[in-house]
């Protein structure tokens, strides 16, 4: 099984101009790999709504598109967003980082930890392009197919859980992040 850092390193190396929405654990890891005005670290958040934010951004800027780096606990809080995403045919790549834990609250198990088939949930919601990787080598080998494929797409990555973590702080306040993102998008 890969660590979250290893999993996101693979994506960061291949990212080419997409907006990236992080939340919870990924908001603490992605800034180690990227410092772009197109990164939006959604903290403080309404838990479970990073997918919605990424969908809105992608609908506004379909050519650029968005990566959403979601957690498994976040995904469970807003499963309906998979149906909404499928119905919009939007340029969104949703990454589900499945560590089986509410990591940012100290590492309590999520409901159904390690028993949930997020790939089948996504397919059942109507997402046609769904990928699963539980080893780093597989993810490295498959990432090009994922990135070059149609959207929306969902990638389910099984990653190691970490205990003793704290809620990450975004590198910049939300207001500053929004201003930077909008400037980079040329909308203000």
């Amino acid at each position: 099984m890969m660590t979250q850092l290893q999993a996101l390193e693979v994506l960061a190396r291949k990212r080419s101009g997409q907006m990236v929405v992080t939340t919870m654990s990924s908001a603490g890891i992605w800034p180690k790999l990227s410092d772009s005005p197109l990164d939006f670290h959604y903290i403080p958040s309404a838990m479970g709504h990073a997918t919605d934010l990424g969908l809105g951004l992608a609908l506004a800027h379909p050519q650029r598109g968005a990566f959403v780096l979601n957690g498994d606990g976040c995904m469970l809080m807003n499963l309906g967003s998979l149906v909404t995403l499928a119905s919009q045919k939007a340029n969104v790549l949703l990454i589900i980082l499945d560590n089986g834990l509410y990591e940012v609250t100290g590492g309590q198990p999520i409901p159904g930890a390690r028993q949930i088939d997020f790939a089948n949930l996504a397919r059942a919601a109507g997402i046609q392009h769904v990928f699963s990787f539980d080893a780093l080598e597989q993810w490295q080998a498959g990432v090009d197919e994922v990135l070059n494929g149609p959207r929306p797409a969902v990638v389910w990555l099984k990653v190691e859980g970490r205990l003793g973590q704290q809620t990450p702080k975004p590198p910049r306040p939300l207001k500053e992040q929004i201003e930077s993102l909008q400037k980079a998008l040329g909308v203000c």
Partner: protein
Amino acid sequence: MITGPEAVAALKSCGITHVLWIPDTALGEWEPALSGPDGIPLIRVCREGEAFGIAAGLIMGGKKPVILLQCTGLFEAGDTLRNVIHDMHLPIFMVVGVRSYFAYRDTTTMDTCPIYTEPIMRAWQIPYVVLDERHTAADLASAYNQIQAEKRAGAVLLAE
């Protein structure tokens, strides 16, 4: 009651680019106009909290969405509403159908929706106006234009 074609015309005159919604019985009558050839891109969500998150992304991306929902959905969406309006300071505009508003005024219903909708809007510190049978689509457009001018969030409570 504002008709669907009147609502769509008013929203288009304001430059609204997307409508996010879960319809109720009254707002549902706007569906043909919204989804018709002269409508506005319509994003159907599964729960109302989603609508606030998607609207936030659209606004950050330079678009002008409106959220249409029933007051029951407003109650459900509280945390997302709090986050996008008070943490992110985005000028969200919503039209909230207030179920049983007229029946409550006439003391012919036990529905508690009208009791709680306005206090909840005040608790969330969201300015709002109530549109009832005396108002027109021009009032809807006026409410939107005012919140845009003041660069803040706001709501129309639509009496049902």
